[in-house]
């Protein structure tokens, strides 16, 4: 496909477009571009409800943070675009997936976690008053002092030792 020139001169009044008009492409360097009519814009895709409704309501936005379209369900776009939306969401929604909890140590004003994640082994720290919170979609989330999010799956997926360590922090 010939790569149309970046066109950010589209009229804001014409936005958002209907999802069916949207075609998404991904360049080798990982950038996503939205195509509709004669227009093309580099975009990013975000979930509107990352924890309460992960499989619906995706907003496609350009570099000036204008909404190009709001996709309620992935069946509103063609299969290729839907696949790219999912890929973009995977990248944008990346967080550390904890698979095993090795240690949770209480220290001065912080809690030190040693965990194994799908991405590798990681140590992180949370404030003593920063508690894990349950998510509607299952599991729980912990935010470390740097702001990284760690998703800990539902208890029955974890080994007994991890569950025991976590028992203090969840009901």
């Amino acid at each position: 496909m010939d790569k149309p020139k970046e066109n950010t001169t589209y009229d804001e009044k014409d936005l958002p477009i209907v999802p069916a008009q949207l075609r998404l492409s991904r360049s080798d360097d990982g950038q996503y571009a939205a195509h509709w009519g004669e227009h093309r814009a580099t975009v990013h895709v975000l979930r509107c409800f990352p924890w309460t409704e992960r499989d619906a309501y995706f907003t496609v936005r350009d570099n000036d943070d204008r909404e190009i379209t709001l996709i309620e369900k992935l069946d509103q776009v063609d299969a290729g675009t839907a696949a790219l939306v999912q890929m973009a969401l995977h990248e944008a929604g990346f967080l550390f997936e904890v698979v095993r909890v090795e240690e949770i140590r209480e220290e001065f004003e912080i809690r030190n976690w040693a965990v194994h994640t799908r991405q590798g082994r990681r140590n992180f720290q949370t404030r003593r008053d920063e508690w894990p919170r349950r998510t509607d979609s299952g599991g729980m989330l912990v935010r470390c002092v740097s702001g990284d999010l760690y998703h800990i799956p539902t208890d029955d997926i974890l080994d007994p030792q991890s569950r025991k360590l976590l028992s203090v922090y969840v009901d």
Partner: protein
Amino acid sequence: MSERNTDREIIDRYTDQPSEMPDEVRRQIEAHWGGEPVQLYAVSDLDASMKLTCTWVALGPKSVALFHQANGTAASIHSVQRDTIQGLREFPGLSCTQVLLLGNPDEPALASFRYSHRQRRAMENIKFILQQQIAGHRIDVSAADDVYAESMAHAVKQAQASVNSSELDVVWRLLAYVKPYKWEVSMGVLGAVLMTAISLVPPYLTRYLLDDIVTPAATAREQGNAIPDGTVFMALMVIAGIGVAFALRQLFIWVRMRTMAVLGELVARDLRHHVYKHLQKLSLSFYSSKKTGGLISRVSSDTDRLWDFIAFGVLDCVLAIVMLISLGVILLLSDWRLGLVMVLPTPLLFWASYSHGGKMRHMFLRIWRRWGDLTAILADTIPGIRVVKAFNQEAYEKKRFDTQNESFYEGCLHIHHSWTAFWPLLFLAYHFMIWLVWVLAVPRVLGMGFFGPELSIGVFISFVMYMGMYVGPIESLVRMTFMLNRAATSAHRVFEVLDAEPEITDIDTPVRLEPVKGDVVFENVSFAYDGVRQVLRNVSIDVKAGEMIGLVGPSGAGKSTVTNLLSRFYDISSGAIRIDGVDLKQIDIGHYRRQLGIVLQDPHLFHGSIVENIRYGIPDASLDQVIAAARAANAHDFISRMPHAYDTVVGERGHTLSGGERQRISIARAILCNPRILILDEATSSVDTETEYKIQEALERLIEGRTVFAIAHRLSTLRKANRLFVIEDGRITEQGTHEELLNKEDGTYAKLVKMQQQLHELYAT
């Protein structure tokens, strides 16, 4: 320990990445660049497949490089010339940010890297410098290792007080505070030692009474003989001795408790004094890195917790150890067979108590969490009660609260079930030991010939009494581990404040300007709050005494930074600021600030009367001077109308007054100080037109004959300025009088004035 070493220690201790770029990596990158030095670096810790990795992103004067070396493979270096970078694109995600370095449009990105939020601060330094380069500003940075270490350690340091000393070090340091109170310490220790020693006397006297007085007398009577002479007298003496021992014990307890409680208060008072005194010395940069609530609790609740520890914790701990060892020895010496029954299971009792303590700690952690949820609801709904009522959500909020309340209650029940089950069990074990002593001892007292030789009734009874005292120290020592932990945490937080060094200090022989004339010169001043992101760049201003200068520009342009530097709240990164020709760093800062007046957008009034607030800068100003200042500030009339007039107590932060009234009191406060240099930072921006007029009128009186720096978004208020400086992106882009700048049709000032006029007309119609 230096700040840099602390940062590196934090990185080593809490992260899985190096605390600085390895020499070999640096060497290879610099060789690849042909000798260019690494100026800044950061770690990209996520690869394209979102796995954890360690790719060094290094910035040199002309290049950016990505260095990666997997285990056992050759290093790969991807280098990009900085002058080919046309743009930077960032894709922030929940826990991963991707950055693309872009070259020519429609060509693939020059480089791409991903990183988690942990690396964000270090990465932002690199991004900032590249963005500035794209915008045409060149910034050179040195001290790459320090900047990296500070960036990586920042989040942990924000969450935690100093981490570079052990619990024991902190306790020793804390105990140094009792040194000045040798008399109190001696009395407290003496009281405690005597109390402990005297506690051991009644069982000994009981033994003597039974074995040496009662038993021989009883035996004599059984044999039909007379009671030996002096028996009754001796018995009465011993009984009296037991009574005296009990009385003395209470006396020593009183001496110990009183002196140690007072000692604890003395130390807590000294700590509060030192911390508060030190807080006054610290620079604004310290305050901007700490939450106000946290600092308040360090002076108040943390020092209070230390009182508890010093008053009772330390001595109780020492005494418990002494008591336990003494009792163990006495029991073994009284009868080693029975003594072993008590002494041998002691480690087991300790282990059981400690392990139960660990479980309790977990349970407490759980209820603290639930308590946090409960109080969060209160913190949410009570300030927002109008919204709750307006949306008729009282029932919903009640249900939300009840759910958390129930959850907290269940947590508490769990704790109560646990300790009420454990302590009876522990005492059951302890009583089993006592019962075993009886089982083994009674046949011996009766002379039945097994479990050992015959045992006198006196030895047995005194043994029983010592046994009763044996569980106390065990309980104390278990309790002490928690107290020690709590006190060490508080001490850490307090010492962190005491260890912080003020950044703004006077030189040894500072210059005093008496009085300040008001000539102000900024010579190529550059400044960055964090050492990297420059907020002011090469700003040069030459202001004559008595001039009024207006600072104009968008939010974040650097206007308030100019006034912060002029007040020497921060030291400049480069260039010089001269007051009456003298470098500001050479000037006695306290003396200089007394001749500086500041009126802020949100003036802070202290709790106290209006007269106290007006006199804040000059506490001994006469009442005539106060009234004159209030008149000049257009404040006298509204103050006089109040029932308590100048003696009206204004509430916390002066909230009982309107914004305009508080502003006029702050102007009166500034007028009374008769400052030579005056800073007006958005002084009229948050009041209505009529109040603004009154404030404006007051300000016009205030600025007469002074050098004035005024920041205002309402440009009409700056018409009287001799000169206006437009600051954009840290630079002065326009300067001149109001009329001169208005005539520059494409100028920023002219555009701003036009926009404000249009806005005014829009609302007027």
